[in-house]
């Protein structure tokens, strides 16, 4: 005789996780080929940016946390800055997201963000302040750096890692396939992105500790 067995609450792994998750309400990472989640945020210079206003331009999102070894890997090797400059030269809007929650590793004030841009010689169009990790959450970002490309129509066309070798070793950058660079070239050439969803790697994104 068959019986139905009811899934038990206790089967949900990690009681604490279960308690936190509803509040965290992770939107599963948005689908490729669909409209990228809209957001409005203030940058480190007080300017307001809205994704809706950027229609007609290709946009790159980069989650960051300057103390994360994987972010440091790409900044100390100048890989990130180089790609930011290349993108800017092609008319791409590169937005760096300071999405570490207030009080967490990688959280920066506007001033600190500007200081980091200066000291690292970075060249994003803007550093958006996301102290409640709202943009990161909307994009299902799990790590720093987690990269996204949005095409001119506002469609999400790439999500994943910055490159193909997940390691903290600078020497690997040269050997890796730079997914974002390749993807941007394809988008600008009007071609579909060949590696459009890759494995992001890095430190856990520092979401707010308590549910908000």
């Amino acid at each position, binding site marked *: 005789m*068959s019986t139905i067995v009811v899934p038990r609450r206790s089967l949900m792994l990690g009681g*604490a996780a279960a308690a936190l998750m509803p509040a965290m309400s992770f939107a599963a990472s948005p689908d490729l080929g669909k409209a990228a989640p809209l957001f409005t945020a203030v940058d480190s210079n007080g300017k307001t940016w809205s994704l809706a206003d950027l229609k007609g331009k290709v946009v790159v999102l980069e989650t960051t946390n300057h103390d994360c070894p994987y972010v440091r890997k790409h900044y100390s090797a100048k890989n990130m800055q180089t790609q930011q400059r290349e993108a800017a030269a092609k008319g791409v809007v590169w937005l760096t997201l300071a999405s570490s929650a207030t009080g967490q590793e990688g959280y920066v004030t506007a001033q600190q963000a500007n200081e980091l841009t200066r000291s690292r010689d970075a060249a994003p169009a803007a550093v958006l302040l996301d102290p409640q990790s709202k943009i990161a959450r909307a994009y299902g970002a799990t*790590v720093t750096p987690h990269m996204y490309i949005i095409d001119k129509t506002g469609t999400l066309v790439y999500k994943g890692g910055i490159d193909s070798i997940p390691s*903290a070793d600078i020497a690997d950058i040269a050997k890796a396939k730079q997914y974002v660079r390749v993807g941007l070239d394809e988008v600008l050439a009007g071609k579909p992105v060949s590696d459009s969803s890759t494995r992001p790697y890095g430190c856990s*994104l520092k979401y707010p500790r308590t549910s908000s």
Partner: protein
Amino acid sequence: MKRLLALLLVLLAAGPAFGQTVVQTDNVRAELLADVAAVKPGEPFWVGLRQTIRPKWHTYWKNPGESGLPTEIKWTLPEGVKADPIVWPTPHLYDIGGVINYGFQNEAMLLVRITPAADLSGGSLKLAAEANWLVCEDVCIPEDGKFELSLPIAAAATPAAPATRAIFDKARQSVPTESPWPARYGVAKSGDPTLIVEAKGLKPEMVRDVYFFPAEWGPIASMARQTASVGADGIRIPLKRGDAKTALPERLAGTLVLTEKTADGEIRQAFDVSAKLDPAFLPSSSLAAADGNEQLSLVQALLFALLGGLILNLMPCVFPVLAMKAAGFVALAGHERSVMRRDGIAYTAGVLVSFAAMAAIVVVIRSGVGEVNWGFQFQSPVFSLLIAYLFFVVGLNLSGIFEIGGRFAGVGQGLAARGGTTGAFFTGVLAVIVATPCTVPFMAAALGFALSQPAPQTVAVLLALGLGLALPYLVLTTTPALQRLMPRPGPWMDRLRQFLAFPMYASAVWMIWVLTQQTGADGVIYALGGMILIAFAIWLLRIGSGASLATWLRRGLAAAAVLLAFGAALKLEDSPATAASASGPTAGVNFDGWERFSRDRLNQAVAAGKPVFVDFTAAWCITCLVNERVALETPAVRRAFEQAGVVKLKGDWTNRDPEITSSLKELGRAGVPLYLFWGPGAERPRILPQVLTESLILAELSSIEQAKR
């Protein structure tokens, strides 16, 4: 200059020669160990990188989850020496602010099998490794270390020191075993896969956490919560599709971790699963209402429930009740419409009240136990037997063997048979009681939804189900147009009633079949014997009435017969069958090479001074299964058992067996697994641990070998 060069050479040589086996970083102490003290050319051995991790920090599994990186080991080995990939311990899940990580806290031993060349020469084998790992708490630190291990080469391999071997033993224990069950997975329309592990016969109440750790990033999203369900046909885990762009793989690999509740506490078991893509399997998230788009909405569930309730009227288990109802309705034919309407409403009320009561029970049990099986009442053989009796008696009644209202005709039927509104109400109650076993196949979706929802929804869905069940009769009794279709009362009513007895008998037969499923063939004897006794009692009572001694004697005899019939029920409760008769061909316990446990055989073997090993097991006991696979049935252990002349007895507790139950009780145990070992001539057994290893059994057996000498 020459001296300088020599010094340089010495320094260069000294570096590797005194290479370290231990690296201490800020957050991890890592040590490279080998399970041999000397290496034999061509004979594989194991090394392990043992990470002792700063409290609360963790390193990562091969699939690190949504962030992090697995530990890597790069080997530099002499020509012809081969290192296999890391064999990982069972991972744990860590929630880092909502980001799911798979890894290890406190300690992780990463095992690697090394195969030295067969023509290995020289004094020692030098293993050099560069390892790097990411260690995280809230923040992440990449760390690394260089290790070197030098092992002497000898004609025969020598095992490492006992302390080191113990570390390896422990490490092997935490490596997942190959899954004993086949697995498959299907993909729902939404693209989300559902994994089925065909672990048939598990007892859901014995299994706590279930989690599937996918072996790699991509096919499965680690982020999504998993709501696994354990049923009679296995473990079902609805998963969320991951971000990899490629199609889902032909085989989905991963590690299934379950926590089993045993008498002595909880045991975490891990199995490596490789699930084949089953194109024919299109999961709907009906059973385990996972967080997915496919979940039924409340409105849908209510509609399904209503429809399901309607269909229930055609089910074999409800049909007899309906037959009763039809007979009753026929009797009402020609009555006032108001009487009919009242009858219909009372019946509906009976159905709804029963469903509400059931919903209340479900809600209460769920809040207490955390889980409810639909049809749970039918798992009791006593209940099956009583329902079979009830069907039988109602059938006799319809056949006209005795008149309605008979005092001994069973409470439910008695009340149901009572005329008027009360009778109609209890017919409704009866309909619900017998309907529940039928609800399962047809109502799976709606019920699954109901039982997994908060209390108000559970009640709403069950009530909708009840309304559906009552609806046809309600419509019939309240719609004059339909009533006009009813033929005039007449002798055909009696004939119809008598005919309706046959579906009742058929239902009784079906209940007896259910009973045999629960108790084995013995159930038939009790049930049919009980029925004869009941029929006998009815016959006795019908012979005559009055205050004469003979009448009282007959009544006493009838009462005794009925008591005896119900006594059969108690007997069933006492001895729910032997393993062989109950579980039949699906019995999961393998007796190959083992004798069936019995007290007599045990006493005899112990008295004869033979070494005896007793394995109390059950088909639903996961830990038992694992112990058998990793410890009791390995070739080495089988051989050792044979050499030592051990009498191997296996007690199968899949269905409770009184002899085993009492044996367990005597040893102060409430359940399986339990392993006993009597050395030769020993009076008392040694109780072995609940989790066995091969080396533990071998050590136990070698101790008697030594004692012999």
